[in-house]
């Protein structure tokens, strides 16, 4: 067993520098690496390129990095729900590359899986395909999309063990498993860190080989963006 445990977010983010490219897991505020984001804010690293499906809200998630102007470029599929983001984007202070959600997920997977490029139908005939190679297969048109090259990936899991194995909960899984595959250094923060051997090897979502550092997260807020309920009848 190779032990991947580090003490805290501070130790986990050792080596993080200005100008780096990061992947950050999560969909909306669900399954985001809260502790890592807080530490990035504390470190004050800037000129970052962040690959993340969304950009948080004004006062939480990646919104915290935006507020401090730490992000030079966002690569996302959907960035609504964030006024400061919209301001920085429209004013040109920040660069934004919007790509289809499935393409984003598949490019993350490709990065970790040693696939330099693949064809997808998403975005063909739209501005997303501008400047990209297109090609017909069986009468349908596809766009060639490439892998990323991030220095760090920050992911959040429900349970993890000392060998770096991860299990996610509910829809908090989302982009986390593919991003975990993709980081040159992958940092996993978990709600519950257990000893190797306590998780069923048959139920691991992300095998420990993909994780370089793991730590027990703390003070999770797990904010709900849209609290929708059915009234008891």
């Amino acid at each position, binding site marked *: 067993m190779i032990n991947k445990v580090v003490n805290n977010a501070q130790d986990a983010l050792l080596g993080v520098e200005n100008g780096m490219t990061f992947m950050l897991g999560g969909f909306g505020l669900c399954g985001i690496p809260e502790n890592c984001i807080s530490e990035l804010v504390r470190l004050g690293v800037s000129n970052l390129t962040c690959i993340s499906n969304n950009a948080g809200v004004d006062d939480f998630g990646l919104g915290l990095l935006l507020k401090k102007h730490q992000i030079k470029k966002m690569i996302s599929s959907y960035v609504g729900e964030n006024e400061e983001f919209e301001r920085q984007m429209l004013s040109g202070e920040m660069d934004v590359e919007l790509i289809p*959600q499935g393409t984003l997920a598949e490019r993350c997977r490709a990065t970790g899986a040693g696939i330099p490029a693949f064809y997808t139908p998403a975005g063909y005939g739209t501005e997303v395909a501008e400047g990209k190679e297109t090609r017909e297969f069986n009468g349908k048109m596809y766009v060639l999309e490439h892998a990323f090259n991030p220095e760090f990936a920050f992911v959040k899991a429900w349970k993890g063990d000392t060998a770096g194995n991860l299990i996610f909960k509910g829809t908090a899984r989302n982009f986390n498993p593919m991003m975990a595959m993709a980081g040159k250094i992958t940092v996993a923060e978990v709600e519950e860190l257990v000893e190797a051997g306590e998780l069923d090897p048959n139920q691991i979502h992300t095998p420990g080989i993909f994780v370089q550092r793991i730590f027990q997260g703390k003070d999770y807020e797990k904010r*709900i963006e849209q*609290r929708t309920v059915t009234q008891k009848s």
Partner: protein
Amino acid sequence: MALSKQEIAQRIAQELQDKWYVNLGIGIPTLVANYIPKNIDVVFQSENGMLSMGPFPIEGEEDADLINAGKQTVTILKGGSLFDSALSFAMIRGQHVQLTVLGAMEVSQNGDIANWKIPGKMVKGMGGAMDLVASAENIIVAMMHTDKSGASKLLKRCSLPLTGVNCVKKVVTNLAYLEIKNNAFYLIERAPGVSVEEIKAATEGTLIVEGEIPEMKF
């Protein structure tokens, strides 16, 4: 009289078929789930990683780790499953989802759709919409026939940045149910009390009216 958003959803729900997996977009499409015909089984896919999405949770039982693609708290039904975004879009691109229902800002008579960007104004991003429209065999667009100023949203050519090309086959608006083929909108049904003339006036694209056009039935 023109349909309400609920009625648009209700009309679309009539198109559902037994054993279909269905992806519903945000807005009117979400309402379709309230009108599933009693005698059929359908399963809702949420592209953030869930099959068999159920209704909103009972108050007090919300789980921050269980949301839909609109970031709303939801539940999961018996027989459901959870998975990552790559597998979710594998389902979508691989055409395992039989129907996609989504909203649009514009649709053109050749089946193009624009629903993600108003240059300089609204730049929220396409989310999963481009994957959905590029992949689905069966796409129904739910939309208002005209914008607030009365301008048609069913056009010869879309003016906004496209989400997908040649992909929309059916459109249900507050005025009509239309099919897109042969580079035209074919009028199939009218909203109850809405005349063919009214629909013609509200449609900028080529509208084909063949024979008597029946009213929708609910």
